[in-house]
């Protein structure tokens, strides 16, 4: 089993135009349980997206082993096991899991594994939908080559104070 995922979804805050396309794409492709939701961050409404933590507190907090790290390293929720108790949502330090439990189950980003697992340059749907190019699906090499700043586990733009 992999320890952590190779690629993560990164948000470039200098580019996000708060359009919600990422959230809509997630909603329409994940049975109306969007794992990408917009949250107020200062004066902006930006998407909050799972960081696929190395030591994921949500996995540790889940009492029924519904939240797991799978073979590819993706932290994902097993729909058939989730009892909607919300322990993972409270444990997540980044608040990316919605507190309001849709249909008694937690919506959770699985990096669109149905299409990204094969490689072939496929990207998660939120990344494909982002009209501004604010979302990227990148590995660590691309992060360092792209001079992308990651602060305290949060992905940010190159200059987080430039605009807002």
């Amino acid at each position, binding site marked *: 089993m992999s320890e952590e995922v190779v690629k993560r979804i990164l948000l470039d805050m200098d*580019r996000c*135009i*708060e*359009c*919600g*396309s990422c*959230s*809509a*794409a997630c*909603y*329409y*492709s994940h049975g*109306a349980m*969007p794992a990408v939701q*917009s949250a107020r961050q200062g*004066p*902006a409404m930006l998407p909050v997206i799972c960081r696929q933590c190395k030591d994921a507190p949500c996995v540790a907090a889940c009492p029924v082993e519904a939240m797991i790290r799978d073979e590819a390293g993706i932290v994902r929720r097993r729909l058939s096991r989730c009892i909607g108790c919300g322990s993972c949502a409270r444990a997540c330090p980044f608040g990316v899991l919605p507190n309001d439990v849709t249909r008694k189950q937690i919506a959770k980003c699985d990096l669109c594994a149905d*299409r990204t697992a094969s490689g072939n*340059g*496929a*990207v998660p*749907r939120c*990344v*494909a*939908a*982002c*009209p*501004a*190019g604010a979302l990227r699906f990148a590995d660590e090499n691309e992060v360092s080559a792209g001079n992308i700043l990651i602060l305290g586990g949060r992905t940010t733009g190159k200059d987080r104070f430039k*605009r*807002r």
Partner: protein
Amino acid sequence: MCPMDVVWKAPDIPAVEYPSEAGAGLCPRGSALGELLASPYRIRGSVDIEAAAGRMAGGATVLINANLPLEEIAAAAEIVSAWNGVELCCVVSPEDEQLLLGIEAGGAVYLADDDLTGCDGFVVVGDVFAANPRCARNVMDALAHHRRAPLVVIDAGGSVTAKFATRRIICRPGDEADALIGDEVASAVEGCKRLGVIISAEAGRGGVWRRVGYHAGELAKSHGGGVSAQTVGANALAAVRLNKHLGLLSPAKALKQDNGTLVALGVDILGMMGWADVDVQVAAAALPNRTTESAQVVLPVALACEISGTYLQAGTKTVQTSALMLPPAGVPTVSELLRALAQAAGANVPPLGGDLPTTDRVNVPAPDITETKVPDGRVLIAARQAARHGEGSLTAYAEWQKQSSPLPEIRISQADAADLGLRDLAQIEVETESYKTIARLRIVKYISPGTLAISESYPEARRLMPYVIDAERDAIISNPTAVSVRTVEPVKAH
């Protein structure tokens, strides 16, 4: 155009897919289309042509939509030309119509979204990133390439685009044209050799858009660039040109004149204009809207994405689109419907010619200077929203849109919110002389005190500031409207 794909989840359940290689995104409005294609609210059933044609016997004005491909607009014009007593108008959003006529008069080059990437500076009027989220990528790519390129945003509505500006000109509604020709813009773009002027024409700014289009063209020409109009209808420019070339009625004339029955085929004219008391006898639509609610005869019609055809992009370039899927069985296109109506009325409609009509630039005079009447006190104007589209008659049926933005958002300055004791995200009652509705408050930084901007894609929001017809200028205008707001507490569940 939208890089959308439709996949079949089950034999009867279409869904959108987001191609990884598209590289240019799919906005929430495109995403919603997959759901709307199989909407349970879809208007189907028998097409009562006899009843509709009977109501048109004493003459009629037929309104069609600027989102249709050229082939459909041309076919509709040909059918109506063979039908005595019936006239046609291709309805463009009133602001877009004025803006495009202004650009036509100024003689500027039109830029397609892709052309924006090559620009070395931008002047933006309105919330262009919300009007067309896909143009944001081209602007950002250009800015990434030319690190010192200016992005000047002229805006009255507290837009998202203004947050990205290197220089912001936060004006009062109706002052956009003066700002465009002002010293601040001139000095900011000095040295630009390929300037992109991008405009989203929004309601509530009075008759300013024709001048904005004209001056935008002048400014772009003087810096080797061009103009990009982010319109609501995908074929708005073609519609404006065809209304002139084919001698169709302008929207102002079509809605002003008394030519018997008003027939709206695929255009929610009452929702768009914010009118409640205009008698539309026959309405065709894919999904129910304000116009079908009040019409005597309701007919089904295909959505634009169910028809293949040609769209005019950026002045001279055309683009071919193919239908995402066929309309449901028995649901006609606008031209099929019109032909059946004409034949039922006894008109001798010839077989349609195969050639597309000319869509060359039209000759229109430079605009007069028009003053926008701004009432004293706080005023309401309209704002674009990336999640919803146009007058909202389609996106109102999309689940994500209903969940993420059930109420229109109303933007207000920090100073006004403090003065009125209003909290961010509070539920607010908004009242004007013509209407009253509920909205969600957003306190924003870049809006002038005294101006409030409400999302336009809700028929209730449009009723707050209904359009008026300016017959003298052959235009339809929406002026800033005096407004009052107060907090309302949501009803608590027990």
